[in-house]
């Protein structure tokens, strides 16, 4: 008989070692062929290596639990209960990575140029739970509504596609730009469905990103989050845009994580702490809210929302707040000035 405290200890050690093994596996170059690690299904096509590991690509997406109200679900093989699923394709994973696919020459527009790709679907928490408890019997039923789907391809060289070349191949009529009208990457376009959802795609340097959701504002917030992650990626998977020289309270301001998203400087909120800004975070599976205070002034943001509340009323944000490395990233000038700080950017 195993005593319960020991069993829990052993389970903890097992879980921790499994996570450590998974993280190690994701941080190294995957072998050619197919592997599944910790719900991440990886195909290494065996082409010329771009040098990206699965962990490098995972860093481009919000984590499984970072979009409030959503989570990821690994598809399950359920036999005749789910005839759309095949045993020979299992395990399915919840995130899909393709490494070193394509050729080094640009003989065609997109797909045959050497690239790596990551794709993930998030589902509303209640639907994910219903699928896992088999109230929703099939994966097809699960994916029918509510999902957020993101895919990123990182190529060996800057993408040659244009809005016109993509439109020519697209059966949908694309709207140029973004739903909010705010610039996104080098080029962006979207499809709006009658229900208010749709797809938002953008190109930035060597990256092509496609996000679809039932709410285009959410899709755009996720897309901004991905653009930020591309720009600040430690391996510089894309060219970093020039960062203006920023002064806060008259002092040079160059914290870790500062970046310019099409001209809007964003920073993790923790970077404002040296200026007397305190932060209260409320994080549940459904909500990620942060309230910033400085003296009598306050500013409250939610992850992936385009509006904030402040001591002077409701504010429309230039960029939605989004998570990165446990922090929320926010538009610097809007937030800092609302808290009484002076910001100068050149």
């Amino acid at each position: 008989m195993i005593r319960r405290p020991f069993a829990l200890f052993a389970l903890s050690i097992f879980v921790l070692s499994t996570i450590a093994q998974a993280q190690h596996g994701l941080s190294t170059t995957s072998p050619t062929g197919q592997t599944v690690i910790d719900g991440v299904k990886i195909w290494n096509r065996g082409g010329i290596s771009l040098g990206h590991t699965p962990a490098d690509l995972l860093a481009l997406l919000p984590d499984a639990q970072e979009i409030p109200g959503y989570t990821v679900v690994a598809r399950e093989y359920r036999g005749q209960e789910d005839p759309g699923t095949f045993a020979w394709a299992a395990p399915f994973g919840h995130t899909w990575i393709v490494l070193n696919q394509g050729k080094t020459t640009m003989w065609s527009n997109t797909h045959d140029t050497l690239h790596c790709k990551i794709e993930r679907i998030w589902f509303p928490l209640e639907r994910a739970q219903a699928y896992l408890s088999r109230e929703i019997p099939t994966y097809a039923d699960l994916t029918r509504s509510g999902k957020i789907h993101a895919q990123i391809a990182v190529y060996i060289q800057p993408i040659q596609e244009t809005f016109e070349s993509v439109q020519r191949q697209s059966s949908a009529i694309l709207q140029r730009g973004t739903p909010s009208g705010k610039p996104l990457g080098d080029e962006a376009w979207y499809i709006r469905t009658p229900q208010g959802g749709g797809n938002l795609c953008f190109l930035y340097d060597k990256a092509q990103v496609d996000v679809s959701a039932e709410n285009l504002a959410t899709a755009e917030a996720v897309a901004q989050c991905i653009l930020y992650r591309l720009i600040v990626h430690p391996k510089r998977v894309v060219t970093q845009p020039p960062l203006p020289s920023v002064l806060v309270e008259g002092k040079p301001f160059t914290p870790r994580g500062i970046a310019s998203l099409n001209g809007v400087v964003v920073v993790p909120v923790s970077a404002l702490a040296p200026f007397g800004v305190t932060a209260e975070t409320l994080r549940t599976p459904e909500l990620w809210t942060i309230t910033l205070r400085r003296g009598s002034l306050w500013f409250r943001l939610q992850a992936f929302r385009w509006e904030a509340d402040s001591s002077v009323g409701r504010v429309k944000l230039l960029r939605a707040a989004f998570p990165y490395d446990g922090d929320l990233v926010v538009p610097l000038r809007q937030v800092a000035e609302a808290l009484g700080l002076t910001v100068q950017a050149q």
Partner: protein
Amino acid sequence: MLWSEGLLLVWTGSWPLPVGVMPYSTVNTPSEVFVVLDAPKAPMSPAWVSVLRLSCSWASGATDDSTAARKVTNALHLWGDYNGGVPAFTNSVTDASENFYLRRCVESFVTSGVVGQCSDFADLLLCLQTSLGLNRRAVQRTHPLDSAARESQLPNGNTGLLLGFQTHVIDAARYGASQYDGSPTWSYHQFCTDSRDQVVWDACLQFRLSHRVAVNAMPREPDYRDHLVKTYYFLDQLNGLIVSIDDPASFWRPTPTGGFIPNATAN
């Protein structure tokens, strides 16, 4: 007749042997025998194992072409996800050809369920049907893609450039409610066709919303055309105004005439 292509063993029965997959194994090598209706046709000649696994499973029990075609079309519609019209697994698109990244499309379908846009559905359906030996299959688009071939004289006498068309209410794949259902405006649509009989199979959509059936062997004209197209939109090239024409026949130009076989690639 029993024949093989490399390591793939394919049975084409001369007696009514239904489509299916038979497990077969030697001492150390479990294998599958795929029973199909006839020798696979282009672009599935030779057929791919990953495609046969789908087609022979979905068309299991079929003993004739029409039943096999209907089964794989309905199954793809039931289980495949439409992506809203974003280019996915095709490129190098011309009016008479395109590359179809079949391996990537099948992998995407069996893991996440996503098939892609209409051209991916049409190309994958073509592969599924031809892998079973079905004859004379090709894919076609509703009209040419090249701008020069999309011009038409408008009722006011000016030249109009076709921008696209609005559909009647459709149920986009998968079967059942999804965010892409409704009456979308498309720049073109691609479907699978019989190059001689001019009938259409389309797993990307269905017209009868309460049914679980996709478009199966529907006469291309007038049935499919009139169920699909509600209004054409043109850009009047003289005054820059948008002109709408509610006549499905006004710019119905299936392209190319006999359809085309995409270049299915494993890259």
